[in-house]
């Protein structure tokens, strides 16, 4: 039984376990630490190098990538804006296929539902395929506290589980871990000899996991799309671990956010290839599987029961914000993380959130409170790389601006207000503006030499350019003469 497995199951320190009031300080401290770690940054950039290459190759196979983005965006826009109609339609079709739906208003309710299902089924060992919604509700910690053995079957998630860390990136969970660290980890927990071959390391996990699929009595998965037309749930994966998780155990529990509904089966003809191309530079992810209920009469294998937990957990709060509603179009491909200069510099853990990177910075203040998470809106250079990369055209970087604006409205900073007033006073008086500029040019070399308190932190890692000899206005006047 997995429950008696010698592997300890470290309890994840859930992101945000620290006091919410310190989430911003935590971010700043972690970011400063990561930015200094040039080895880590170089490693993450190298890992992403292959992604850029294959993504570009695959995007070039589309006859018009921009129109494909339009279609994907429209499919999601239509579904999210008609959720009141499509969600009940999906549920009716899903239940007609023999599955059972459980509605969860929040994380605690979702955990209670799942624990109830496990108890009712007299389950002992649980195998999971990758599921970010389960990270969001901190399911593993709850299952372990209740005495269940839980194993993550996705290779990256398995490595993170052994390390006792949450995923670093919601699509590439252990992209920050070097192969020698994985070799040591497997040696320590599985007793395998050291190796520096990614292939051999993968085979160690494969051999280890095979027994567990056969022995587990419950399989827990996420869902990528809920198809209203047919009542099927679609699961996308590369490794085959989700297929095995839903083939061998006798109970299947899927967890999905309510926003995953699409209207038509045909929408997947656009969304499945685009998810693969944007997310991992593939033409299609290796396994895209549609499930509609438990084993049918006449089928030889598959679970006896299939349950779906539909999770709100503040998604309706985001839905209520019409301006940012398109953030619910997100298909969790992770493309915005892969191109984000902030993510590449501060790393995945610094965010302290279940969903990292630009999209996480947009949705987390909605899901977990603006007051404590608005600092993430500042974690952007507003370069717009995320928006350009998004296959469903979420206006990510503008939403970060919207969040900054909303925060300024609800909790304005006095210092910022004072600063703006001072600027308006100076800028509306040309003589004062010119005098200010002169003073700045003259005092810049002095500031560089003296490093006064406010500037020293900035100057510790950056060089200031030399002061210009004259103001822009003076140079302009001279040129016109």
């Amino acid at each position: 039984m997995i429950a008696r497995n010698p592997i300890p199951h470290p309890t994840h320190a859930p992101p945000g376990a620290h006091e919410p009031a310190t989430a911003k300080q935590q971010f700043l401290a972690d970011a400063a630490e990561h930015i200094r770690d040039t080895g880590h940054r170089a490693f993450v950039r190298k890992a992403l190098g292959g992604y850029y290459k294959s993504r570009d190759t695959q995007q070039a196979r589309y006859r018009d990538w921009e129109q494909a983005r339009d279609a994907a965006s429209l499919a999601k826009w239509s579904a999210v804006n008609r959720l009141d109609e499509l969600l009940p339609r999906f549920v009716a079709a899903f239940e007609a296929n023999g599955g059972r739906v459980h509605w969860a208003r929040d994380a605690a309710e979702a955990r209670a539902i799942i624990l109830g299902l496990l108890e009712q089924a007299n389950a002992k060992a649980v195998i999971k395929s990758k599921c970010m919604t389960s990270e969001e509700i901190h399911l593993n910690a709850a299952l372990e506290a209740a005495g269940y053995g839980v194993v993550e079957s996705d290779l990256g998630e398995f490595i993170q589980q052994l390390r006792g860390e949450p995923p670093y990136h919601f699509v590439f969970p252990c992209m920050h871990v070097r192969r020698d660290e994985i070799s040591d980890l497997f040696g320590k927990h599985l007793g395998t000899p050291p190796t520096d071959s990614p292939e051999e390391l993968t085979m160690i996990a494969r051999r280890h996991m095979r027994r567990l699929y056969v022995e587990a009595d419950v399989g827990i998965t996420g869902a990528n799309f809920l198809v209203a037309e047919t009542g099927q749930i679609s699961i996308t994966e590369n490794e085959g671990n989700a297929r095995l998780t839903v083939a061998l155990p006798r109970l299947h529990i899927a967890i999905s956010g309510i926003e995953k509904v699409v209207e038509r089966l045909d929408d997947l003809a656009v969304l499945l290839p685009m998810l693969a191309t944007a997310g991992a530079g593939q033409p299609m992810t290796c396994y895209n599987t549609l499930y509609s209920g438990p084993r049918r009469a006449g089928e030889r294998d598959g679970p006896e029961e299939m349950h779906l937990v539909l999770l709100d957990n503040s998604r309706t709060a985001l839905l209520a914000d019409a301006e940012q509603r398109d953030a619910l179009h997100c298909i969790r491909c992770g493309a915005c993380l892969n191109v984000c200069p902030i993510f590449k510099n501060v790393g995945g853990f610094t965010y302290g959130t279940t969903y990292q990177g630009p999209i996480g910075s947009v949705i987390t203040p909605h899901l977990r409170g603006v007051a404590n998470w608005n600092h993430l809106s500042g974690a952007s250079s507003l370069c717009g790389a995320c928006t350009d990369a998004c296959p469903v055209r979420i206006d990510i970087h503008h939403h970060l601006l919207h969040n900054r604006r909303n925060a300024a409205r609800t909790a304005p900073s006095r210092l910022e207000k004072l600063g703006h007033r001072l600027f308006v006073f100076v800028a509306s008086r040309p003589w004062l503006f010119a005098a200010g500029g002169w003073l700045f040019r003259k005092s810049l070399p002095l500031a560089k030499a003296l490093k006064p308190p406010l500037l020293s932190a900035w100057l510790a890692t950056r060089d200031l350019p030399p002061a210009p000899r004259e103001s822009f206005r003076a140079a302009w006047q001279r040129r016109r003469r």
Partner: protein
Amino acid sequence: MSDRTPAENTAAREAILARIREALRVPAPPPHLSGHAAAAAPEPNGRPGLMILPAEAGRPWLPDGGDTPAESLRILADNLAKLRAVFFQVPDLAAAADCLFAQARERDWQRVAWHDHPLVAGILAGIPCSTLRIDAPDEAFDKRSLEACDAGITACECLVAQTGSILVASDSCGGRALSILPHCHVVIATVDQVVPVLADALALIRDRHTANLPSMFSFITGPSRTGDIERILVLGAHGPKELIVILVG
């Protein structure tokens, strides 16, 4: 802790649906599109309707799936090669059997699993190893024996040229585990099962959406793979390390 009562579930359902209805009272701005207009179909209740692209039929902007059967076949073979699947095209069932037996000898298979389907049963007699029929009526399904098999041999619903995908269904392709648990997956199909694009395969699924919809459909696109260790591609993460497609005709 016990299961929730139906009343508790209904209460949660009503609460969430009420929140959704309330949230949607304010309409969202239309989506940003790359330039060409989307047609908004009006809805009777006055809410924004479903927006559809005028030229959606055929989706001439997705990757090409070929306009003729010959072109589709060429694209399929090309995609399968890029995905590192092994692809054979043979003239008839006898040649398919020869091809399969050669694979069995080359890889030294001890035991292969199969399911009852004319294409599979038709070529299996004489294979140089022992066999396990997964859907034998008088035997219970045994996942341990299946796990010990070297290969699983299945039919498929169709093959998609555009993406190089193979569509399997739980009722017609030997259930859920046969195509994922053994270390090698062999697909036997006929050339008329090749469809150009993903939408064709999805239409096929929708047509089967009747009272007895299979509990699983899976698009298989190449052998199982992972890039979780330093983003370096490794084949055979948890599913089959090898995918062999034998196309008859």
